[in-house]
C-alpha cells in the first residue's frame, strides 16, 4: 500500500460513519502491527505463578495499607470534627484565637502574663 493511501485510511478510520473494524484490518494488513515480543505469555505466567507469593504479598500489603489509611483517615476526621465542636461550645466561635485558647483573654492580661508586670 502506498503511503498516501495509508494516510487516507488513517484519517478515514476516525470518521464517525466509517466501518472502523474493516479499516483497522486494512491498516494492520498494511503493516501497522503492534505486538508484544516473542515469549510474552511465558513471561506473564512466570511472573504470576513462580513469584506468585511475592506478588500476592505485595497486593495484600497495598490492600491492607489502603484499609488502614481509610480507618485512620475516618478517625482523624471524626477527631477534628469533635475538636471543632468542643472549641465552638467553649469559646463561642471558631476564630484563630479560639483555636489558640486566647478567646477569653484581652491583650493586657496576656502582656501581664508574658512580662510579669
Amino acid at each position, binding site marked *: 500500500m502506498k503511503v498516501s493511501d495509508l494516510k487516507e485510511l488513517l484519517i478515514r478510520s476516525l470518521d464517525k460513519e466509517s466501518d472502523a473494524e474493516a479499516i483497522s484490518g486494512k491498516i494492520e494488513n498494511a503493516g*501497522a502491527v503492534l505486538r508484544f515480543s516473542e515469549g510474552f505469555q511465558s513471561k506473564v505466567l512466570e511472573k504470576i505463578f513462580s513469584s506468585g507469593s511475592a506478588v500476592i504479598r505485595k497486593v495484600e500489603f497495598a490492600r491492607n495499607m489502603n484499609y488502614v489509611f481509610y480507618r485512620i483517615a475516618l478517625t482523624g476526621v471524626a477527631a477534628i470534627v469533635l475538636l471543632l465542636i468542643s472549641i465552638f461550645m467553649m469559646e463561642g466561635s471558631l476564630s484563630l484565637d479560639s483555636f489558640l485558647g486566647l478567646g477569653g483573654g484581652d491583650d493586657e492580661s496576656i502582656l501581664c502574663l508574658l512580662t510579669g508586670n
Partner: protein
Amino acid sequence: MIKESYRQKSENELVKASLGGDKQAFGEIVTRYQNMVARTVKGMLGDSVFSEDIGQEVFIKLFYSLSEFRGEAKLSTYIQKIAINLTLNEIKRRKRFFSMFSQKGNNEMFEYEVADHDTQQKKEASELVSKALMRMDPKFRIIVAMRMLQGYSTRETAEILDLPLGTVLSRLSRAQEQMKNILGKL
C-alpha cells in the same frame, strides 16, 4: 505450551479455571487477548520495551482481580479497561517525571522502536502509524487507538472509556483534524 483442549473453552470456563489457579487456563486468556492489549498499550505509549512491562502488568492485575469479574460485560472489555487505566497512569507518571526533571515536550516522552518487518513497505507503514500516534495529544490518542487500531465502533469506545457518546464523537472529530495536520507534515 497451552494444551489444545483449552483453546476450545469458553471465556467463563477459562475464568473459572484460572480462579482455581489453573496456569494453562490463564495462559490461554493471555494468548487470546495479548494482541488487543498490545494495540492499546503500544498505541498509547509507543512501541518500546516499557510498553511490554505495562502489558505484563495488565495481565498480572487481571489475574488478581478475576474474582471481581462478574461476567456481566465481556472479558475483553474488562481487560481493555485495565489496560487503559494502567496506560493512563503511566502517562500521568511520565508527565510528572518529565515536568520535574526534563525539558522534553509531551510528544518526546513516548518512544517507539519499529519492530522487524518482512518488507520495507510494512516497516514504513508501521513507522508512519507510530509517529502519527505519538504526535497526537494523549487525550485524543486513546480514542484514536480504540478506533484505528482496535476497530471499535463509537458506541463500544464510549462504553469502554466510560464516556458519553457525544463526548466520544466530538473528540473523534477533533482527533481527525489533528491527525490530518500531523499526517500532512509526515
